[in-house]
C-alpha cells in the first residue's frame, strides 16, 4: 500500500468532515480553539499506521482507511431502535446513561442517581458559558496520540459524572453506547471524577442497534480516581462485526486508591482499546485486565501504558485472547517506572489461545524502568487447547463445542476473576457466553 498516496486523500476527506461537523460541535471560544488545535494535530499526522511504533500492529490506514461521516443527531425512529438495544444490554441494577450515535439520550437514561452524584451531558457543559474551564473537558494529560486528538476535535457529546467525597455508590453507572446509523462515525468523550474516598463501579458497553453496520465508534473516557477512592471498571465491546471501535481511557489514580479494570472485546471488525494509566499518588494498586474473543477476520488491539510516576504502587495486568478463524489479537503493554518510583511492583501476563491455524496473536511487552528498587515482570504464552483435557470432557459426553466452551471459559476466567463483585462478574461472563453461543 502506498502511504504517500493515501494520506492526502484521507486528510482532505477529514478536513471536509471537520468543516461539515463544525456547526454540530458544541462549544465556542476556548472550546473551539481546543478543537481546532486538536484537529490540526490530527490533520498533520493523519491516521496512525504501521510505522508509528504504538500502532505497528494496527495500521488504521489499511484497517480503517478513512473516517466515516459524522452520524446525524438521532431522530425518534433511531431512538426507538436504540431503546430496544438498551433493553438487551441492561446490566441489572445499574444506572443507565445512554449515548445514541454520539448523543446523550436522557429519555433512555436513568434519572440522576443518588445525592452526591452529579451526571451532566458533555454537550450541555460545553455550551454553557457559565462553566469555567470547560475546555479542560476536552484536554487530556495523556501522551500525544492522533486518535485522541481526533476525538477531542469531534466529540459531540458524552457524560460527565462527579461522585462526591467518601460516597459509596450503591449501584453501578452504566454508559451504553449505541449506534443506529450504518456507515457513520460517532465521537464521544466522557469523564468520571471520583472525589477522595469515593467508591464506584463504571460499566461501558458498546453495541449496535439492530441492522446498524459498518459504523465507527470513537470514544475517550477520562477517569480521575481521588485519594483513597476505588473504581471498578468494566468495558464490553460488542459492536457489530463489521464496525470499528477506537477507544481510549485516560486514568489518573490518586494515593492509596484502587483501580480495577477489565476490558472485554468480542465485537467490531477493527478495535483498539488504549489505556493510559498513571499513578499520581503513593500506595495505590491497579488491576488492568483484558479479554479478546475474536473470530472471522476480526482485529482487536489492546494497548496499555502503566505509568508508575510515584513510589510504592503496584499494578497487575492479565490479558487473555481466544482466537478463531483468521482473527488477529494484539496486546501491547508498557510499564514505565519513573526515576522516583521506588518499590514499584509491576506485572504483566498475557496468554493467547488459538483455535485455528489461521489465527494470530501479537504480544509486545515493554518495560521502561528508571528506578532500581522495583519488581517488574512479564510473561506470555500462545497455544492451542489441550487435547487431553478436551478428550476428558468429551469422554464424559460433552460435544466438541461444549468441551471447548468450558475450557475457553476457564481460560478467560483467569482474567475475569479479578472482578470482585459477583453480579458484575456475571455481566462479563454473560458477554463471553454470548460469544461462545454465537460460535454454534
Amino acid at each position, binding site marked *: 500500500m502506498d502511504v504517500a498516496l493515501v494520506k492526502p486523500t484521507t486528510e482532505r476527506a477529514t478536513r471536509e468532515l471537520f468543516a461539515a461537523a463544525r456547526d454540530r460541535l458544541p462549544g465556542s471560544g476556548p472550546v473551539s480553539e481546543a478543537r481546532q488545535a486538536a484537529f490540526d494535530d490530527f490533520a498533520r499526522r493523519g491516521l496512525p499506521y504501521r510505522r508509528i511504533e504504538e500502532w505497528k500492529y494496527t495500521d488504521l490506514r489499511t484497517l480503517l482507511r478513512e473516517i466515516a461521516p459524522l452520524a446525524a443527531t438521532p431522530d425518534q425512529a433511531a431512538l426507538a431502535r436504540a431503546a430496544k438495544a438498551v433493553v438487551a444490554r441492561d446490566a441489572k441494577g445499574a444506572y443507565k446513561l445512554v449515548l445514541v450515535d454520539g448523543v446523550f439520550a436522557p429519555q433512555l437514561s436513568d434519572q440522576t442517581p443518588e445525592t452526591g452524584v452529579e451526571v451532566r451531558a458533555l454537550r450541555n457543559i460545553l455550551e454553557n458559558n457559565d462553566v469555567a474551564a470547560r475546555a479542560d473537558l476536552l484536554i487530556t494529560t495523556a501522551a500525544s496520540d492522533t486518535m485522541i486528538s481526533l476525538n477531542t476535535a469531534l466529540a459531540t457529546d458524552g457524560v460527565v459524572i462527579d461522585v462526591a467525597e467518601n460516597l459509596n455508590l450503591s449501584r453501578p453507572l452504566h454508559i451504553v453506547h449505541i449506534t443506529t446509523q450504518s456507515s457513520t462515525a460517532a465521537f464521544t468523550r466522557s469523564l468520571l471524577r471520583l472525589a477522595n474516598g469515593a467508591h464506584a463501579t463504571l460499566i461501558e458497553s458498546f453495541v449496535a442497534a439492530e441492522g446498524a453496520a459498518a459504523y465507527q465508534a470513537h470514544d475517550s473516557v477520562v477517569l480521575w480516581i481521588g485519594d483513597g477512592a476505588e473504581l471498578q471498571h468494566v468495558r464490553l465491546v460488542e459492536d457489530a462485526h463489521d464496525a470499528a471501535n477506537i477507544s481510549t481511557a485516560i486514568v489518573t489514580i490518586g494515593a492509596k486508591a484502587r483501580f480495577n479494570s477489565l476490558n472485554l472485546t468480542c465485537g467490531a471488525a477493527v478495535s483498539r482499546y488504549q489505556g493510559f494509566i498513571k499513578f499520581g499518588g503513593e500506595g495505590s494498586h491497579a488491576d488492568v485486565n483484558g479479554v479478546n474473543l475474536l473470530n472471522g477476520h476480526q482485529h482487536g488491539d489492546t494497548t496499555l501504558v502503566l505509568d508508575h510516576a510515584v513510589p510504592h504502587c503496584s499494578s497487575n495486568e492479565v490479558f487473555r485472547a481466544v482466537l478463531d478463524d483468521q482473527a488477529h489479537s494484539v496486546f501491547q503493554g508498557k510499564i514505565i517506572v519513573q526515576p522516583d518510583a521506588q518499590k514499584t511492583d509491576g506485572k504483566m501476563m498475557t496468554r493467547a489461545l488459538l483455535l485455528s491455524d489461521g489465527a494470530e496473536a501479537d504480544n509486545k511487552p515493554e518495560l521502561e524502568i528508571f528506578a532500581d528498587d522495583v519488581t517488574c515482570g512479564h510473561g506470555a504464552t500462545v497455544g492451542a487447547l489441550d*487435547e*487431553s*483435557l478436551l*478428550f*476428558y*470432557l*468429551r*469422554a*464424559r*459426553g*460433552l*460435544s*466438541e463445542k*461444549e*468441551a471447548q466452551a*468450558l*475450557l475457553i*471459559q*476457564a*481460560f478467560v*476466567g*483467569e482474567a475475569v476473576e479479578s472482578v470482585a463483585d459477583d453480579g458484575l462478574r456475571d455481566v462479563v461472563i454473560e458477554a463471553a457466553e454470548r460469544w461462545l453461543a454465537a460460535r454454534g
Partner: protein
Amino acid sequence: MPLLEVKDLQVRVEEREILHGLSLTVNKGEVHAIMGPNGSGKSTLSHVIAGKPGYEVTGGQILFNGEDLLEMEPDERAAKGVFLAFQYPVEIPGVATMTFLRTALNAQRKARGESEYSTPNFLKKVRDVAASLNIPQDMLRRGINVGFSGGEKKRNEVLQMALFEPSLCILDEMDSGLDIDALRVAADGVNALRSPDRAMVVITHYQRLLNYIVPDFVHVMSKGRVVKSGNKDLALELEASGYAQFEEA
C-alpha cells in the same frame, strides 16, 4: 447380542503397532478383569474404546450393542453408555466440578432424548453419590481434580460413573494410588453399580482389587494381545507366578 465385542483389533500409535489383533467379548452383567505387564496395551485398549484421538485403528472392529463404536465421536459413545475411569485423570483448573458434572450429565441425557435434570434433583443426586463415596462437598466446588490427591481423583472417577450410570464401565487401574480404606469404599461404589444390564472391565495389576470386585473372567494381556483367559483363579495364579511365562510366548 454381546454388549462389547472387540474383534482382532490392531492399533498403531505414531507408526508403532501397539495392539496386534486383540479380541474380547463382554456380555451384560459380566465383570471382566484385564491384567498384564506394564506396556502391554491395557490403557491403549481402553482409550480406543473410549475414542481418544491419536490412535490409528489399522484392523479389526469394536461393536457396542452391535453398533460400530469406531464410527462414533467420544461424546456419542459416552451417551450410549461407554464410561472409562481413567488411569490418570487430568486436572482442569477453572472448570468447577459441579458445573462439569451437570453439563456432562445433561449432555448425555439430551443425546439420548431424555429430559435434563432440574437443579434440585441434580444436586440431590450428586450429594447422595458423593456421600456414599466419602467425597466431601468442598471437593466438588473446586476445579475438576484440581488439588485432589491421587486417591481423590480416582474416587472422583467412580463418582462420575455412579452419576452417569453407563452400561459399560472400564476401570483403568482404579486401585492405584488408593489406600486400603479408600479402595474398599471405591470398590463398594463399583459393586453397587453391578447389575444385569451393566458390564465392567477392570484393569488392574493387583489381585487384591479382585477380592473386592470379584470378576467372572480374567484375561491376561501381553504385547498387545489377550494371551490367556480364565476365571478368578487365574488372577491368583498370576500373583504367584508373574507374567514371565507369557512374555516369552
